[in-house]
């Protein structure tokens, strides 16, 4: 099963098995990753599942759609070039080892 590495704001990594098709947000909630809030339940409406995707993986992701781009503009920690909403990242085999860094705050 592919893995995702969630890196806390202080730099601590935590590796989690994520089934293909599951979102990076849903896997974080299921595994109790602090720092992913997902206030809107995963429908791209609140920006509280904001992550910074490791550059080596960023270009492998399907591009963000307009709604995600709009919502990223209200993220608590200002968005960066590699910002994504983890509710919009679905796991694939190709993304095995995906590294996402969590912002210092989500709201």
């Amino acid at each position, binding site marked *: 099963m592919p893995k995702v590495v969630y890196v806390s704001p202080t730099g601590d990594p935590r590796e989690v098995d994520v089934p293909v098709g599951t979102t990076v947000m849903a896997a974080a909630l299921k595994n109790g990753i602090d720092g992913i809030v997902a*206030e*809107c*339940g995963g*429908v791209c409406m*609140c920006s509280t599942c904001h992550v910074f995707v490791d550059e080596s993986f960023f270009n492998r992701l399907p591009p963000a759609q307009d709604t995600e781009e*709009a919502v990223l*503009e*209200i993220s608590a920690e200002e968005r960066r070039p590699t910002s994504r909403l983890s509710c919009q990242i679905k796991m694939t085999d190709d993304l095995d080892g995906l590294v996402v860094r969590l912002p210092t705050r989500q709201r």
Partner: protein
Amino acid sequence: MIDYIDKIPNNVDLGRDKVLQRALEHWQPAYLNWWYDMGPNESHAFEVYLRTATSVEPDGWAQFGYVRMPEYRWGIFLQPRDVDRQINFGMHKGQAAWQDVPGEYRSTLRRIIVTQGDTEPASVEQQKMLGQSCPSLYDLRNIFQVNVEEGRHLWAMVYLLHRYFGRDGREEAEALLERRSGDDDNPRILGAFNEPTPDWLAFYMFTFFTDRDGKFQLSALAESGFDPLARTCRFMLTEEAHHMFVGETGVSRVVQRTCEVMKENKIDAPSDVRTLGVIDLETIQKYLNFHYSVTLDLFGSDASSNAATYYTSGLKGRFDETKIADDHLLSDSEYPVFEVKDDKIWSKSVPALTALNERLRDDYIREVQGGVDRWNRNMEKAGLRFRLTLPHKGFHRAIGNFAGKYMSPAGEVMSEEAWKNHQHEWMPSPEDYAYVRSLMSGRVVAPGKFANWIAPPSRGVNNQPLNFEYVRFN
């Protein structure tokens, strides 16, 4: 007869619950009558590009399509049940969460649900006329989305009243449709929900500030030991996120447009800004001061025995209760609150149990500050020095330790006379409201067009373009 599968999407097995069906068969026509009377004015034939919740799954509850609002499928949804869920705070901590109303807390729980439920139709009533002056189809669609979801939140609370509180619950559900925002004889329960929402800047401020109070109240109730209330509120929170998005981006677009005009024309005097048909930053600050302060009152008294009782009884927790590392009993801990003595503001420690309103208010203030900081990015980008700020917690308060005190936004205690001399520097004056309303004398409804006083959003709704026909007028 209501077709329960098609008309009322639900995950509460409504099709088999005869008692609930009978209650809703009586209540639903009254609800629709209320919607026709008090819902968005002259909108009933419009086809609106709305999302409808049809299940609690992420891919099921945000179904987009054109809907006439009276035909909107107001559903009843609870977050799926966790059979192992326990009460996480108070004297019942560690017990299994209640699936039925505990007899000793029946009237208290009913009051909590009614108070929350009363806010939902109230905001629809407050916003009833705004469709006549919308700045774009995009914004018109957004206010309608907010309105139908506030209607659904009313349904959610009415479901609890009907399902768990018998006859008195049904009577309370009817009364929710009878009170009216701002009515002298039969007003809504909470003060901020009787204030007018006279224009679109007020609407954006309301959805940013006051809907966020709703979020914090719902979050505290989502921790409740009464499991159906907790699960209902948890799902409502998912929808509340959109309302706050509308508010935050709405204010930000107003600020952005003003900054653009100020920069292009190298002006900063409010009178010069107004000649160019946008809202000066000083007036935006006054609106902020008003909406922030009346919303702070919604959290209640700084020290409250009711709040302590709700917590100890396991009915209403703290924001993010289960993420807080303490004993979740609060019997020995303290919390700071402010009071005014001898024209000075003093901090004093009180039992944390009685200060739960104040704690929730402080949680709220921290989050609101983040949004204000994001609005200020517009000024930074435009190279302007003006910054929006939150006024002091004691400014313009009517409830709690600051009630009856006169304080400036900076937190200086002053006399009533001195405060009134400055009132219109800090709060919108009748002239300010008249100016803002003058910008919104008609609605802008050509697809892709926006009123001069607001910047377009960066993106459309549900990945649609900005010139999408979000509302079809029939």
